[in-house]
C-alpha cells in the first residue's frame, strides 16, 4: 500500500447506484486491479447500462435478470470513486448456476473394523435463482477503513429495502487458490482432466457464450471422491485466495455459511445464507433523521467518534444512497450528508448498527476473480475438509 490510509469520519463514504458517467472512473479501478472486473470499455459500458435499467425498473416488476452495480465515493476526497460491488438478482438467470456441494458419506465394514468418512463433491444447481453478490472491489488504500464495510453491507441494506427484487437466499463466490501463473490446484486436479487446458483458455474457447455453463456440462456429473484427488487439490478445497480475505470476512461476520458450497472451477468457497438471517438485515430499522450540525469537518482529519457506527440508507431504486455515520438512537444529518443522500427533512431513513471496525492490515481487497493472479501464500487457517 502506498497511500496513507484514510481516516473514517461520519458521512465520509457514499454508496450509490453506478451511473453511465462513472465509466472512466470504473475503468481506472479495473486497470488498477488488473483482475476480476473487466477493463474492456465496451463491456463495462454494457454493464453500466444494464445496471441503470435494473435500478430504474419497478421493484414489483423484477424479472430476475437485473444486475445492480454500486459505486463507493470518498466524499472526503472530493467524491473520488474508491470501490464498486454488484448484486445479480438471480444467479444463473435463464440458465443454471453450478456449484459443488460438500457432502460426507460414512461407510463401514464391521468385519474389517474399518470406518470411513468420505468427503464427496456433488455438482449441483442448488444456488440457481438465489441472489448473488458480485464484483466486490475496493481501492487497497481503504482496506482498513469502514469503506469496504459500507460497500459490502450497504448492498444488504438495498436488498432488505426491496425484497421483491431479490430471492430469500443469497450467495457470493469467493476466489480459490491459484498462483502467479494462473495455475490452480483444484482446476488442475479436476477441470483439466476433462479439458486438457487452462481454465482461462477454456473460457476463451467458449467464445463468450456463458462459459461457465458450457464448461460445467463437460465436468463429471457424478460425485467426486475427494480422497482420489491429489493432496494439493484436497488442501485447496474451500481455501480462499488471499485477495478474497476481506470480502469473505465481512460475509462470515454477516452470518453467511462458507462451508457448504464450492466454486466448481477453482474450489474457492461460495458463501451462502438467508437474507433475513444476516446481521445487517436483522439489525436494520426504520427511524426519523434530524438535520443538524456537521459532526466533523467532513475530511475526518480530527474526527472524534464516541457513538456507535451505523449504516444508514435512504431512498429506493435509483434513489438509493447509503453511508456510515455514528449515532445513538436517531441520526443527525448535516447539510452535506443530507445532500449526498438526497435526504429531505421529514422523511425516514433506515439504519443498522455496524460493529465491524475495518479489515485487517495489509490485505488487498479485490473483486471476485475467477483465477486471480495475485501471489499465493495466504493464511490457510480455514480447515480443509476431510483431512485429519
Amino acid at each position, binding site marked *: 500500500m502506498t497511500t496513507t490510509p484514510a481516516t473514517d469520519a461520519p458521512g465520509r463514504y457514499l454508496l450509490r447506484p453506478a451511473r453511465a458517467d462513472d465509466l472512466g472512473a470504473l475503468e481506472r479501478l479495473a486497470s488498477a486491479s488488473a483482475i476480476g472486473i473487466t477493463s474492456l470499455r465496451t463491456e463495462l459500458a454494457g454493464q453500466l447500462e444494464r445496471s441503470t435499467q435494473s435500478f430504474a425498473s419497478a421493484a414489483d416488476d423484477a424479472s430476475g435478470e437485473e444486475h445492480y452495480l454500486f459505486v463507493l465515493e470518498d466524499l472526503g476526497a472530493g467524491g473520488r470513486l474508491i470501490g464498486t460491488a454488484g448484486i445479480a438478482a438471480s444467479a444463473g438467470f435463464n440458465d443454471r448456476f453450478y456449484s459443488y456441494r460438500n457432502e460426507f458419506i460414512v*461407510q463401514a465394514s464391521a468385519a474389517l473394523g474399518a470406518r470411513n468418512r468420505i468427503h464427496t463433491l456433488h455438482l449441483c444447481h442448488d444456488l440457481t435463482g438465489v441472489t448473488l453478490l458480485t464484483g466486490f472491489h475496493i481501492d487497497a488504500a481503504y482496506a482498513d477503513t469502514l469503506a469496504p464495510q459500507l460497500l459490502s453491507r450497504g448492498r444488504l441494506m438495498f436488498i432488505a429495502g426491496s425484497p421483491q427484487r431479490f430471492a430469500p437466499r443469497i450467495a457470493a463466490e469467493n476466489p480459490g487458490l491459484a498462483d502467479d501463473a494462473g495455475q490452480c490446484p483444484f482446476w488442475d486436479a479436476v477441470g483439466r482432466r476433462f479439458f486438457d487446458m487452462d481454465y482461462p483458455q477454456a473460457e476463451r474457447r467458449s467464445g463468450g457464450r456463458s462459459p461457465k455453463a*458450457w464448461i460445467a456440462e*463437460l465436468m463429471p456429473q457424478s460425485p467426486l471422491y475427494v480422497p482420489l484427488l491429489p493432496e494439493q487439490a484436497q488442501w485447496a478445497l474451500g481455501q480462499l485466495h488471499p485477495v478474497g480475505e476481506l470480502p469473505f470476512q465481512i460475509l462470515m461476520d454477516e452470518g453467511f455459511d462458507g462451508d457448504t458450497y464450492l466454486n466448481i472451477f477453482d474450489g474457492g468457497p461460495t458463501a451462502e445464507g438467508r437474507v433475513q438471517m444476516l446481521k445487517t438485515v436483522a439489525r436494520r430499522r426504520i427511524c426519523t433523521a434530524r438535520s443538524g450540525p456537521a459532526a466533523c469537518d467532513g475530511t475526518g482529519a480530527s474526527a472524534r467518534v464516541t457513538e456507535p457506527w451505523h449504516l444508514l440508507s435512504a431512498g429506493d431504486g435509483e434513489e438509493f444512497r447509503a453511508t456510515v455515520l455514528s449515532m445513538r438512537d436517531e441520526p443527525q444529518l448535516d447539510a452535506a450528508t443530507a445532500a449526498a443522500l438526497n435526504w429531505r427533512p421529514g422523511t425516514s431513513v433506515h439504519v443498522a448498527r455496524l460493529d465491524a471496525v475495518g479489515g485487517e492490515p495489509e490485505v488487498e481487497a479485490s473483486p471476485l476473480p475467477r483465477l486471480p493472479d495475485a501471489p499465493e501464500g495466504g493464511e490457510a487457517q480455514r480447515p480443509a475438509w476431510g483431512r485429519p
Partner: protein
Amino acid sequence: MSTDMAKDEGGAHVERWCVQDVAAADVPVLAGLLPAGADLSLPEREAERWWLVRRPGRAACACLRLRPAIGLEQPRHWYHVGCVVHAAAELGLFQRRHTLLLCNDHTGAAELADIVSDAAALDLDQQADALRLLVHHALRHIAQHRGTYPAQLVAELPGVRDAQGRSPFWLGLGAHFYEGDPQEAARRFGPAWRGHVAALLPRQPVYTAFLAADAQSAIAQVAPPARVLMQVLADAGLRYSHHVTVDDGGPVQEGWIDGLPAVLGGGGPRS
C-alpha cells in the same frame, strides 16, 4: 471321476491326465498353488464341484471350482467399466472418459473359480492343456446337468501386480478407502474379504481419469502368468464382460452357457 486324453499335435506326450474331484488329501497340494484367501473347502452341495488334474503317479497340477450361482448368500462385487462421452462442439471437444461403478452385476451367474495350474511343474503348453481339460470338463458337466445351472457363466482373472504382490489398481483406488492390507484381509476372511472391503468402496461412478496413470492402465489387464488361462477361457467362448475385480482390476470373462461350443456340440478341449 472322468478321464481325458491330453494330446498335443505332435503326440509328444500321451500319458493319461485325469480330471477328478478334489479329495481331502489333495487340499494341501492345491493350497500351495492357489492364492491366499482362496476357498479350500470341499464342496458340500451337488451342484458345486471342485476338480483337479492329475498326471499319472504325480500330485495335482491344476484345479478349478465350479460354483452354481454366486452372490446369493454373500454379495459379490465388481466394478463395471463404463464409458462417458463429454462433447462440446462449441469448445471443439470430444472426449471419452471411462468410469468404474461398483456393482453386483453377475449375481446369480455360475462361476469358474480358483482356476490355477502349476507353473513350476508344467510348461505353458502343458498348462494350457491342463486348463482346457478342466474348463471343458466343467462345461460338459454343466451341459449334462443343464437345469442345475443358470444362463450365465463367469470367471475372474487375476490382475497385474508388482514383484511384491502389490496391485497398482488397488493402490490407485481401493487403498484410498481401506487402509488395511488387502492380502492380509484375504488370508483372514477367505473369499468373503472382498465383500467386507466393498462396503468401504465408492458407491457412485468413479472417473478413471482421477486414478494414477499406472492404476488406469491396470484396469482389465490380466497378470502375465494368467494369460494362458485367459486364452483357454476365450477359446471356450468366454469374453471380457466390461467388469473387473475390486482388488486388482483383473478382468471378468463371461459367456452365455447355451451358446458355448462345449455345451452346444460337446466338442473336445481341442475343438
